[in-house]
């Protein structure tokens, strides 16, 4: 019996390890980690600084980009070897697929988007947002085996110590894969700071009439040392940005979020829920975004924003 953690970056391993420790207190067993990728020895060395027993390392060019079948084979081989009955991974698109594939292979229960883990009557109990982030669902895992995908940022990262764990280099047969990856085009990072890491985010919605007008949003983000983003229609329908803020896109948790010309559809507001302070600027006083805002300015963004930019520039210039 053991707990296996699978991450892609050191931070995800550090957070997953914190969750693994909570589970270990109740269910016992050992904790192992698995690293899959290309040129990831350095990552494995870092992960070995967590108090895990073994770090299983799959370092192969075939793992340079994601192929669900290839990654599944690596993961499954280590689940078998460690006799893992709990697998923890970060909840993102790729891992939801990997988790789904693995869960049905193992006949295990699967939960994703986990934001809380506890125990009731000896059963693992999780909470996850549902209904486009409008509600929180409490669920228990009834099966012996469980795969739990946890949202990034939920658990405090455990500090990395000196390398202690053993790194076990592994390989897996990748012949006869039914799925082939023809091409991978990485997402262009919109600004210098990633939306998910930014302390200040300026978001633009359909109130922005022309693509050129996004320049105001970009400038505002720059003045505030933050990132900028858009809502789904601006990205998916108009193609003004490669990604969007929302439940189906990127969830953000800045200290300060400006929603500019955003009406406030659940799809969007669920992705900004974790923001500390939300400011909305919209000319429609009935826009749902004002219910999600700490401070709302009712007014024409084309009149408000230039003034706001001027004041923010002065302010940041003073500092």
């Amino acid at each position, binding site marked *: 019996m053991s707990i296996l953690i699978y991450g892609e970056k050191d931070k995800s391993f550090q957070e997953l390890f914190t969750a693994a420790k909570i589970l270990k207190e109740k269910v016992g067993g050992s904790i192992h980690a698995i690293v899959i990728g290309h040129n990831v020895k350095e990552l494995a060395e870092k992960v070995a600084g967590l108090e895990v027993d073994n770090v299983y390392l799959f370092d192969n060019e075939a793992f340079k980009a994601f192929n669900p079948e290839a990654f599944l084979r690596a993961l499954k081989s280590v689940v078998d070897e460690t006799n893992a009955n709990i697998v923890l991974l970060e909840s993102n698109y790729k891992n939801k697929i990997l988790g789904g594939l693995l869960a049905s292979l193992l006949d*295990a229960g*699967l939960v*994703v988007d986990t934001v809380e883990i506890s125990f009731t009557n000896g059963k693992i109990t999780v909470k996850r947002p*549902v209904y486009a982030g409008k509600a929180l669902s409490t669920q228990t895992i009834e099966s012996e085996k469980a795969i739990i995908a946890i949202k990034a940022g939920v658990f405090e990262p455990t500090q990395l110590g000196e390398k202690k764990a053993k790194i076990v280099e592994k390989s897996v047969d990748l012949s006869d894969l039914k799925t082939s990856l023809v091409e991978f085009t990485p*997402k262009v990072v919109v600004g210098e700071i990633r939306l998910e890491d930014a302390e200040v985010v300026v978001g633009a919605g359909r109130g922005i009439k022309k693509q050129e007008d996004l320049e105001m949003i970009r400038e505002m983000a720059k003045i505030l040392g933050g990132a900028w983003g858009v809502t789904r229609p601006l990205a998916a329908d108009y193609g003004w940005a490669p990604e969007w803020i929302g439940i189906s896109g990127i969830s953000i948790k800045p200290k300060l979020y400006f929603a500019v010309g955003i009406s406030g559809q659940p799809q969007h507001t669920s992705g900004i829920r974790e923001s500390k302070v939300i400011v909305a600027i919209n000319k429609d006083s009935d826009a749902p975004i004002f219910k999600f805002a700490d*401070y709302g300015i009712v007014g024409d963004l084309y009149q408000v924003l230039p003034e706001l930019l001027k004041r923010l520039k002065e302010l940041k210039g003073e500092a």
Partner: protein
Amino acid sequence: MPNILVGVKYSLQVENLAIDPKTMMVSEDETPKQMGDMDKRALEEAIRIREKIGGSVTALCVGPSEATKIMMEAYAMGANEAYLLPITGNLDTDAIAKIFAEFYKKKGPFDLIILGASSTDSFTATLGARIASLLGIPVLPFVKKLELADDEVTVESDLGDGTYTFKAKLPVVVTVTLEINEPRIPTLKDILKAKRKKINEIKLEDLGLGDLASKVRIIDVKAYEEKRKQIILDATDPSKIGEVIDQLINYLKEEGVL
């Protein structure tokens, strides 16, 4: 000519949740429902393939008996066959995947299974992978573009960190996102024609799944309370803008976020 299976869910309208104001609990029964928005695109994609190269489209819904409503809609859109497997309460993705896998074996085999990448309500985005895993066939997830040539399918998948072009031989499971197409709106004639069609009912027992149980059980669902301050500053009069911005900046300084 491909035989296509499409999964559709009778999903909660998340913008119309029935919430008990005292307990904040969400009542699934009292919340209006509809076909999931990505499921509708899955059906549309399947119908487009059939219109182009022939074949047949079968829609399957696992849901309450009232879900016949969306199965009529599936007929109106152009499905050849619509099946409803009635259940009471919830089943987890493990159980639903088993139903689809057994349906595939009993009523198939199918060349393509197309699903919405995620449901509108529970949004786990894991069902396609689970079905593929049970059937031992590939899953091509979060697809925004699909091309089918002979027995091979090429897709563009958006997996968050970029776009992946995957290729696989049939049979495969494909899960589609909102970007893949714009679903058709059935005409009145289509709707009337659909009313003459029969919705096929299938039971768990017919699939040899009489003792199906969920591995993950939902205890409760509680709506979030919106605890924002909701301080509204009126800048509709352009002469007030300067004043409003000063107020805002003071507030943000007090909050320690500026």
